[in-house]
């Protein structure tokens, strides 16, 4: 299976989904006009990955600077796909990275935690440089 790599733009994040290492990354800002269009290839990729999910270890790192409310729903869909991979036999975790001062981002992570009870969803603080 091919990896999926999308370079970041002013309004969309960098995405790298690597089937060999099981490392998945979404980093940058997600404020596109049409988030559905942007997130569809990601969800399609995760759907295809299901076939080889059994006994795999997967971790998704999400480190967003900004995201709009339309993206918030798409992100939840991505997280739900990850939960499905767990149901298919993979060990999964999601890391939601926040800057220490960013209460809004931490709050958003807590909301996702509440909505995704069956998977490991960690809120992590980015260490200062």
């Amino acid at each position, binding site marked *: 299976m091919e990896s999926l790599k999308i370079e970041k733009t*002013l*309004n969309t994040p960098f995405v790298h989904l690597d089937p060999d290492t099981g490392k998945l990354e979404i980093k940058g800002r997600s*404020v596109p*006009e*049409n988030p*559905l269009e942007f997130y569809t290839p990601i969800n399609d990729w995760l759907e295809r990955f299901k076939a080889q999910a059994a006994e795999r270890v997967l971790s998704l790192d999400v480190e967003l*600077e*900004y995201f*709009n*409310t*339309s993206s*918030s*729903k798409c992100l*939840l869909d991505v997280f739900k796909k990850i939960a499905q991979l767990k149901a298919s036999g993979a060990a999964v975790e999601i890391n939601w990275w926040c*800057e220490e*001062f*960013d*209460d*809004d981002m931490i*709050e958003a992570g807590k*909301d996702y935690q*509440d*909505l995704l009870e069956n998977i490991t969803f960690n809120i992590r603080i980015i260490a200062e440089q």
Partner: protein
Amino acid sequence: MKKDYSQVYNEMQDENFILSYKGQVGFVQINSLLRIIEDRLETAEQNPKTRKKVYNIATECYQNLSHHLEKHSEEIGMKGLAVFEAYQDKYIIATGNYVFKQSEQKIKEKIDYINSLSKEELREYHKQILGSEGFSEKGTAGLGFVDIARKSEGNLRYEFSHLDDNLAFFTLKVEIPRIENKQEHSS
């Protein structure tokens, strides 16, 4: 009377600025406005938390405006008003656009409901919408006002000025207090 901009210029503190835009509010125009605001905030706002919050709220307000503009007569078109004001003690973000009478009631009910909720209730309401399936017909999550209210931690102020029986001009105004954070200055 002619407006004297030299006076406006001189009265404004260096760290203050006002940006006021009327025109097409498509995604491209909104992006340009946000780029200017982000750039100015970078130098004008020392507190990273406030900087991020303000930029986030501006993004949501203006994208909301862009998404929800309704098609009217040729004359009104798809134009809207986007305002950003930075003062020493607060930021003000405002949007304005024409809405049809039938939308007015819906918007009012939604904002009044949001304003009536406590912080915790607002969080639950947000989660409830986020967790529900699907998008609106406009491709949005229906979370705009809720998110703005949560992040700004204050009431959303609005006004409808009636143009005629059919149309009203809807103004939304959000205020974000500016917090001095000396600790973060010193580092």
